[in-house]
């Protein structure tokens, strides 16, 4: 089956099999004649969930197993979608402790990438809220890992991109909410230093993220729109919404039916869009529903097709706090000069929250840029990678399709410990993806 990631680059013809239960998973690992990788919803952008020799789909491993309304602890099979968790639990007054920017990811994928949300500076990465998980190892054994039980394997698996084994089940602690609404504040920032100052001042806001114009250089370099948010309390709602504060308004969904021709998102178009977007952004505070605040892109199904047939790549890096100002300025200057059209550029300040051995977040600024694939893109990415390495930063595996082994090693100092843990549990040589074959040859 021809598979790709969300960026539709690269694609590969993979032997796939559906995992249906623990027994099926055991059969799959014991019978494997080559390496395997688990795949959730394929929402990682590049080649993390691709293995031509064997890609194991978790979509049928999707049962809710237990919920404790006292603690909010929810136990599910790993193929359960965040979408399902939200559909079932928002109405009952619960919300995931950390959420990425799309509902269409699996629980296993969120753990394996140790995803972050707009609340990273307060809540840390997703796996901080994982109470325990069951991992199937290469020999078919199932090991329960948690911060107290098998802590080494737990820290290797959280953010471990499927390379330690197959996550079968996990327990995540949901957090209580009073309403399905967010109190949002929008701040326009005219420059990079302005938005960084605004982030630093906004540490109290539970959620914060900025849309940043990746095309403007010079005086407008780093101009941004900062979005701050907090879960609205019942008393924050107008009387009309207070009746049913957890009701989620119906969404109109659009869809991109086929890949669009490349010209649609050519640099001039994106520049125009960015300018209009920046000027139109309304400063001020207001109420927005959860979907509009957290998952704006989900409103357009298959939006990745707007980048055309060749697909696109995302470049997401994080720089240590002390090096962020200078590093970001250089990254943005190089990007603006290249003029390759980054349409969805996002900036966020991470907190210090510790994660797994290969978890992406570190304290500092993360910047994400999208590039429709063209001949010039790999060269630009090499330049950006070099800047990131110079400043002691790293790239996000869940977004990556092109990074070099050198960049990977330089960004992930716990790699030796991770590899040792893979050896210890017999995962080495049994689990691999096109990405791991590329970055850890």
């Amino acid at each position, binding site marked *: 089956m021809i598979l790709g990631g969300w960026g539709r680059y690269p694609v590969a013809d993979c032997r796939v099999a559906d995992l*249906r239960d623990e027994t099926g998973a055991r059969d799959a690992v014991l019978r494997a004649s080559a390496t395997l990788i688990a795949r959730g919803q394929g929402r990682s952008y590049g080649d993390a969930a691709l293995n031509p020799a064997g890609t194991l789909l978790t979509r049928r491993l999707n*049962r*809710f*197993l*237990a919920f404790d309304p006292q603690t909010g602890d929810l136990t599910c099979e790993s193929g359960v979608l965040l979408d399902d968790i939200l559909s*079932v639990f928002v109405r009952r007054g619960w919300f995931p402790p950390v959420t990425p920017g799309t509902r269409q990811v699996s629980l296993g994928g969120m753990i394996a990438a140790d995803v972050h949300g707009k609340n990273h500076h307060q809540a840390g990465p997703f796996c901080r809220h994982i109470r325990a998980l069951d991992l199937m190892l290469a020999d078919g054994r199932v090991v329960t890992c948690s911060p107290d039980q098998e802590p080494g394997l737990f820290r290797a698996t959280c953010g471990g991109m499927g390379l330690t084994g197959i996550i079968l089940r996990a327990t995540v602690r949901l957090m209580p909410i009073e309403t399905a609404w967010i109190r949002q504040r929008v701040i326009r920032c005219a420059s990079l230093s302005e938005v960084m100052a605004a982030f630093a001042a906004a540490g109290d806001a539970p959620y914060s993220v900025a849309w940043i114009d990746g095309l403007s250089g010079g005086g407008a370099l780093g101009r941004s729109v900062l979005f701050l948010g907090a879960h609205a309390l019942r008393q924050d709602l107008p009387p009309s919404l207070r009746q049913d504060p957890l009701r989620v308004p119906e969404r109109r969904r659009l869809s991109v039916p086929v890949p669009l021709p490349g010209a649609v998102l050519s640099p001039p178009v994106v520049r125009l869009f960015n300018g209009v977007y920046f000027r139109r952004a309304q400063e001020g505070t207001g109420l927005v529903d959860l979907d509009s605040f957290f998952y704006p892109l989900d409103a357009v199904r298959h939006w990745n097709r707007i980048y055309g047939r060749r697909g696109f790549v995302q470049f997401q890096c994080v720089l240590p706090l002390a090096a962020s100002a200078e590093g970001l300025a250089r990254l943005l200057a190089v990007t603006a000069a290249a003029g390759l059209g980054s349409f969805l550029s996002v900036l966020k300040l991470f907190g210090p929250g510790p994660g797994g051995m290969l978890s992406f977040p570190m304290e500092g600024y993360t910047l994400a840029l999208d590039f429709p694939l063209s001949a010039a893109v790999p060269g630009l990415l090499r330049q950006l990678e070099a800047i990131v390495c110079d400043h002691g930063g790293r790239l996000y595996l869940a977004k990556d399709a092109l990074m070099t082994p050198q960049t990977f090693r330089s960004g992930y100092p716990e790699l030796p410990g991770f590899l040792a843990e893979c050896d210890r549990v017999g995962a080495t040589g049994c689990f691999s993806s096109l990405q791991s074959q590329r970055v850890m040859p």
Partner: protein
Amino acid sequence: MIDRNPPSVLILGATSEIGRAIAAAFAAAGHPLRLAARNSVRLEATCQDLCLRYGVEVTRHEFDVLAVETHAAFLEGLPDLPGVTVCVVGVLGNQRQDEQAPEAARWVMRSTYEGPASVLAEVANRYAVLGQGSIIGISSVAGDRGRASNYIYGSAKAGLSAYLSGLRGRMAKVGVQVMTVKPGFVETRMTAGLPLPPALTAQPEEVGAAVYRGWKHRKDVIYVRPVWRWIMMVIRLLPEWLFKRLSI
């Protein structure tokens, strides 16, 4: 719209993905569920899942379609007589091997026709007395014409389709609904590893939704995906001298 008192739904063969999907479609509309299968401890996770997702009552029950002598007692042992009974049980077998192994072929035929028809007979007689209830049988397009590549299974499904058709005629007079469901290809454990054409292949959830809709609208026969109705019409129209030469 959600009924105020939706009838309970019995799923025979609830370990199958199609059975689980049908259960979910009814649960989403608030129906309590009775899930039945052999070795029914395997249903524990599915029960938990449906109960957590939809907040309906879900019970599980031991059931073997081949143990025909136990069927009456099985029905008496349920918490109530379910208002809807869905039989999903069936065995595909391995045509090539089963051609040479009469015992295995008989097992396919008994599991796919004799067993389901027997248990549905017990259910029908109870519904007939009450003058209400719905019987849903999962047959297959494979029963619409015997093909060289799967006629053992196909003949059993043909038997089941004919049985349901006749039962529908009998039950129509007493107000009991009988619906025949004919899936084409469905991506499940049964078809794992087979090369299925994507445009003609349904996901189990599609079957679940179609069965629920068909039940709601009191349909007699549904195909999933609907295009299979036309495909099978053409296949049935082919003259035998031509059909026997085709390798389908």
